[in-house]
Every structure is written in C-alpha cells, then in structure tokens.
C-alpha cells in the first residue's frame, strides 16, 4: 500500500515511515500541508496519515478542503490531544479514523485495514504468491476455489512473512509484531499461530518452514 504521511516532526516521520516500510508499505513524507498538496497532486495514495498541527496550518482545515474538493482518499488523523471533542470533530469533518499519539503500530495497522475494508474495493490489495491469493482486507486466502478465512493474528503473521518471502523471522520478532506490548505472551504462543497458518496454507504451493534456532520463513514449494 502507498501511504502519504503528513507530519512536521522530521524524526517521528522518519521512524513511522521506516516502521511502515518494514511492513512492506510505500511511504511518502510531507512536512507541510503545501508539500502534502503537492504529493497528492502527483501520485495516487491508498491512505493519508494526517497530523493536526502543522507549520502552515491545521490538518483539519486541510481535510475539510480535501473533502470539499471531492477528493476522498481515506484519512487517518494523528492527534496528540486525545480529547473527545477533537476526535468527534475530526470524524465529523470527514476523517475515516483517528489514532492518538503515541500509537501502537499494531493498532495503526489495524485501523488502516479497517478503514480500507470499509472503503471496500477502492484498493486492490490482493497478493499472489505461489499457488494462493492473499486478500489482506478480506482476510482470506484463496487456493484454487477454496477460500479460507484468516483470523487476525494468522493474517498478521502471513502479512509479515509475505512482506519478505524467504526471509527468516525469529520467534521474538514475530511476537513483538503480532502481539500488543501490554499483552503477556509466552514464546510458545507463536507456535500456535504458525501451526494454524500452516494448515491454512495446505496445498497452496507455499510452505512455512521452521529453521531450528533461527525462526520461520515462507517459501514456495
């Protein structure tokens, strides 16, 4: 997916962009609203992450202008104030969702997915790999005519593994990305999801391989 990140803090923007890139997304960064307009004029984006306070104006005003111009790229507001009124207002002004800083990337992703899912069909999100089609938004895995539903963490796991096929991920790494940090998870918890995903991948032409002492990787058969 292609994100436009509108955020004036250079450091934060870099970190967020890196994190999103890690998930396999493309990210452009605009430090001002003017930059943002420029980016939006040159390329299509699947989603805009919009900060509220920017050096050349209020993100909400920008949003209102965008919506008034009938440009309806999904927008998730990033707010630091977390007040209910701000949240409600941003939603009223046409934002698709909001997220309060500092945010959990897991939550950000979940929200992005939810927003895109609601914009049903606006983005073609399906990926072909080996013998299956992975629909991230629909949370399905299609092998031939067989459509298999994925649970949230199975989907996340598949997403991570698919972002760099063939790359091995350690258990710890996967736990960090699959679970929220305030959850109490044992190392073995990941094996449950690996086991489940293997079953779902059955006959798909792809294999979830265990590399003893290293981790897991997804490879075509």
């Amino acid at each position, binding site marked *: 997916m292609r994100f436009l990140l509108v955020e004036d803090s250079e450091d934060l923007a870099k970190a967020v962009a890196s994190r999103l890139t890690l998930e396999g997304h493309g990210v452009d960064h605009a430090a001002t609203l003017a930059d943002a307009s420029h980016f939006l004029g040159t390329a299509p984006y699947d989603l805009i992450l919009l900060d509220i306070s920017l050096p050349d104006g209020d993100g909400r005003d920008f949003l209102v202008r965008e919506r008034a111009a009938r440009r309806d790229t999904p927008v998730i507001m990033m707010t630091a104030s*977390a007040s209910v009124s701000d949240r409600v207002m941003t939603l009223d002004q046409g934002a698709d969702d909001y997220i309060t800083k500092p945010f959990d990337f897991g939550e950000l992703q979940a929200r992005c997915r939810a927003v895109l899912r609601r914009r049903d069909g606006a983005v073609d999100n399906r990926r072909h790999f080996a013998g299956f089609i992975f629909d991230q938004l629909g949370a399905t895995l299609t092998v031939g005519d067989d459509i298999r539903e994925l649970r949230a963490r199975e989907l996340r796991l598949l997403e991570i593994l698919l972002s760099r096929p063939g790359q091995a991920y350690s258990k710890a790494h996967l736990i960090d990305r699959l679970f929220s940090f305030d959850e109490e998870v044992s190392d073995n918890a990941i094996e449950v999801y690996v086991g489940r995903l293997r079953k779902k991948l059955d006959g798909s032409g792809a294999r979830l391989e265990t590399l003893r002492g290293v981790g897991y990787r997804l490879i075509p058969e």
Partner: protein
Amino acid sequence: MMRPFDPARIVSLRRRLVWQFLVLSAVLVLGLFLVVGWVADRASRASQDAVLGAAVTAITEGIRSVDEGLELDLPYATFSMLGAMGDERIFYLLTVAGQGVTGYEDLPPPPTPATDMAPVFYGADYRGARLRLASVGRMMLIQNRLQPVTVTLGQTRLGQAAIARDTARSAAWAALGFMLLALPVALLAAQAVLQPIRTLADVMGRRGPRDLRPVRHPTPRELAPLLRALNGLIARLRAALELAETFIFEAAHRIRTPLSLVRAEAELALAETSDEATRIRLRRMVRAIGESSRSANQILDHAMVMYRTDQYAAAQVDLAALSRAVLRAIDPIAEMRDIRVTHDIAACIIQGDERMLEIALRNLLDNAIKYAAPEGHVDLTLTCTGTEATLAVTDDGRGLSDDPAQLIGRFRRGANVGDTGGSGLGLTIVTEVAHAHRGRFQLKSGEKGGTCALLHLPLP
C-alpha cells in the same frame, strides 16, 4: 496587608439589625419624651399664663381709688385657684408710682413696664424659687393725681412642670410599651430580611463541589451586587480551570509527539536487533510508553467527565447509534487481539450527555477487551425497558476476585490483573458518568465466568 482573622470580628447581621432597631427605638423614646415634654410644658405654661393673667387682671380690677387713697380687695378665691395646681407659692406686689404699697416689695419688676391692661409675663428667681410673673399697669387718679398703678403677681410653676414631666413620661412609657411590642416584630422582620441570604447560602451549599455554573437564583435587588461578585468569582474560577484544562491538553500534545517518536524508534530497534537483552529493554520501554499514554488518556477522560458533570446539560441521545459508533472505533483494537465483539443493540433514546456516555462506553469496552480471554469474546447488549436503559458489557476473562465496589475506586486495580496495563481509572470514570445521569454502575461476575459490567441509565 492581610488582617489576621479574628473570630470576634464576625458580626451577626440579625443581631446588628435588632440592635439598630433597639437603639433607634431608644432614640425615638427619648425624642418623644423630650418633644412631648416640651409641647406639654408649652401648652400647660400657656394655660397657666392665661390663669395668671386673668388673676392679675382680676386683682387690678379690684383696685379702687377712694378719697383717702387706694382700696384693694385681694380675692381669696383667686389665690386659692392659683395655688391649686400643685401647691404653688404665690407672691404679689402693688405699687403706686413705683412705690410698693402692699405685698412683697422686693419682687422683681417686669423687664418692660406694663402700661396697658394686657399683662406682661416674665420669669425671675425669687426667694429660692423660679417664678412666673404677670404684671399689669394702669393709670389711676389717686388723691387728685393721675398715677401709675402696677400689680404684679408671681407663682412657682412646680405643678405645671410636674404635669409636663408626667405627660412626657407617660408618652415615653407608651413609646417604650410600643417598642417592647414591636421587638418580636423586629426580630421577625430581621429574620425575613435575612431569609434571602440564607436561601442563597442554601442554594450555594447544595451545589456539587465542581458545579461552576453561574448562580441564577432570584435574589432581592440588594443582594444583586453580592450575587454579581459571586458569579464573577465563579466565572474567574471557571476561566482558571479552563485555562488549566487547555494547559493540560497543550502539555499532553507537547509530550505525546516526542513519546511517539521514542516509541516508533524503539519498535524499529526491536525489529532490527536480535540481541535478546536489548530486546527485553526495548520491550519494557515500549510498554511503559503505552501505559503512560493510556493513563494520560484516562486522566483526560476523567477531567472531561468532571467538566461535563459541572456543565451537565441533558440532551436527547440515540444510545443505539452511539453504541454502534463506539463499537466501530474499538473494533480494530479488538481485532488486533483476535477478540470477537458481538452486540445486541435495541433502539433506545435517552436524555443525557453524549460525550460522557461515549467516554463511559469506550472505557467499558476497552476494559472488557483488555481482560477478555485470548481470542476471547466481548459482548455489548443494550436493552431498553420502560424506565431504564441498560448497557451490559460482558467479557469471558478471568472474572472478578475482589469486591466489585472496591474496583470502582479511583486508581484501584483488581489484584488478579497481573501485568495487564491500565491505570484503573476507567471504572471510576464510568461510575461518575452514571451518577451524573442519576443512573448506577454495577460490576458482577458473568453467568459463564468473566465479568459483566452494567450501566443503568434512567429514561425520562
């Protein structure tokens, strides 16, 4: 400079009013005594003067010039009458051509000689007494010579003074009597006058500790300045509080952006490092940031609830629509944790504060998702009976171990929550929202384990 507080300086308005009344009445009584005394003195003096004048005239009429000189018939009855009122002392003098003929020759003469039949009245001290005198003069032919004859009659005025004094005293007693009669009335009046102050105090006293609405209680005009001052104070207080709120939001904003950066960097680092010790540290860091963020959110929610409780203004709220909106907002978080959220929402419209209800419901669902079993289930049921709407949030988590009432206390967390993050303020917030709506909040163990949180809100 601040004056030290001295309890003796506290004055009772009521006592002051009554005292003022008493002092005023005393002044009135005294005034009445003096005025009536003066008037009575004048009136009785005038009538006494008339008697004295008539007496001296009568004596003068009795003087007859005869060949040998003068003939005088001093009338017994006249003297008797003059003395009648209070045993007055009586002095008289008859002079012919300035020479005393009979009576008290050293009696003080009138300041201006009496020349016609109209008596001249005057006062003088004589023989140790204050006298009122009347003098009449006329020309008479005595021994073939026209000579001036003067009759002077004086009397003490003890009786008259006593009468004037008695009259004044009676008036004073009467006034004193009225004053005594009026005293209970004055007490009642003071009570009545002070009643609005008491009522205002009651109105203020009944207010909640955070109720900062201006006072709109109808008060007498005289109390309007006090009320204005009070409302001014309230307005300043509210402005100060709002400023503090703005400050909190601003501060939150300033802290949150760097925190976001720290968290994002930490997560990135986590993704990139494989050193287990570093990973543990980074994980702790991320978790701490998450907790602080969550606590800050709850504190802000709480502040918002407090604020809106004070400003409480009920409006129509579509509880079903609100529930769906909150569910939608919370859904990604539930999904992230593989928790299934189901709902059964009946149409329900109540009177209330939408923002507060949203905060309450979000906290309830947040809590439920947090304590639900792994890949568990959370359910929201909205039912609506004739008198009450009930939001029931059920989870399938570990359930309750502590006294549910204790859990609701601020910053309290169940003993069995282990490492699950949270400030424990969530349930307090919900309770306060319930109270603001005259509803109630209940935590109980679910039928099949887990916890059931019930928010009952009365229907109008």
